[in-house]
């Protein structure tokens, strides 16, 4: 009897906990990544681990290094932020939240020059990768992931 009650209480608590976790604020990681082919590639940054296979398959590089990044916790879904490196800036403007994710306006700047602009609906379970300009022997990639 006591055990059954304890089981029931813990079960209900787990469900409530899981539900409230689903409704919590989420963090968007945005990064400027240089993809290159090198003889001795460095370990992939932890933020990119989950898409490492896809990055290698799509772009054909063996090393991915973050040159600029930003981590933003979204509370209202209306925030904006900037991920910068020495020469590039990625401006992200969140324009609302839906059940599937966030509507974002992205602008890639080279110093003060706008290179690329896009609007995307970033899903909570699906990262976005943007192929940027060629830089030396490598490639600039923009990556957005909801953590």
């Amino acid at each position, binding site marked *: *009897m006591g055990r*059954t*009650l304890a*089981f*029931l209480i813990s*079960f209900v608590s787990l469900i409530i906990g899981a539900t409230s976790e689903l409704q919590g604020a989420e963090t968007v990681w945005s990064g400027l990544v*240089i993809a290159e082919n090198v003889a001795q590639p460095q370990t992939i940054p932890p933020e990119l681990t989950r*898409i490492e*296979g*896809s990055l290698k398959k*799509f772009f054909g590089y063996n090393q991915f290094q973050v*040159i*600029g990044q930003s981590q933003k916790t979204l509370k209202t879904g209306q925030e904006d932020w900037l991920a910068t*490196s*020495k*020469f*590039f800036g990625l401006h992200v403007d969140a324009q609302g939240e839906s059940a*599937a*994710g966030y*509507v974002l306006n992205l602008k890639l700047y*080279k110093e003060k*020059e*706008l*290179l*690329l*602009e*896009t*609007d*995307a*609906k*970033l*899903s*909570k*379970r*699906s*990262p*976005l*990768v*943007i*192929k*940027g*300009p*060629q*830089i*030396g*022997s*490598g490639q*600039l990639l923009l990556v957005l992931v909801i953590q």
Partner: protein
Amino acid sequence: MKTFEEKWTAWLDGQLSERELAEFEASLPDRAAAEAEKADVRKLGVLLKRELGVSAFANEEFFSHQLRERILESSVPSAKREANASTWWTIPRLLWTGTASLAVFLIFTIFVIRDKNPAEESQYLTQILNARVDPVVSPNATVSMFEVKQDRVTVLWTEGLQSLPADYAAK
């Protein structure tokens, strides 16, 4: 010593002795009115007896059977009677039934969600709504987009953007 009301009631019912009757009737202020009232009361009595009278029970056997049932019932031990009256829904059974129902509900919910997912998968993939490049900076640039459902990755693929020297890879 009887009160007037007692004597009056006894007079109406005809239960006064001869001496009491004579004394009482002599004491009445209006004999005729009293007699009229007595007649009315009798009529009323007759009417009530006729209309509301308890019907006589005719079937003696039926009543004796009922009586025997009652006696038998009262002779059964009280514990046995309580056992007969108790319900199947004891508290542990209720708890187990509740838990089992919840489990069944969860199993069905999981199956429904699982079935629903493939159809709604595209909704959970990042979607590129539009993309543009500066035609002045990169006049030959093109953009294309694709979703890799297997890896759940969405890619915006640009071609023809102005290439930059390696220095631009600086942090």
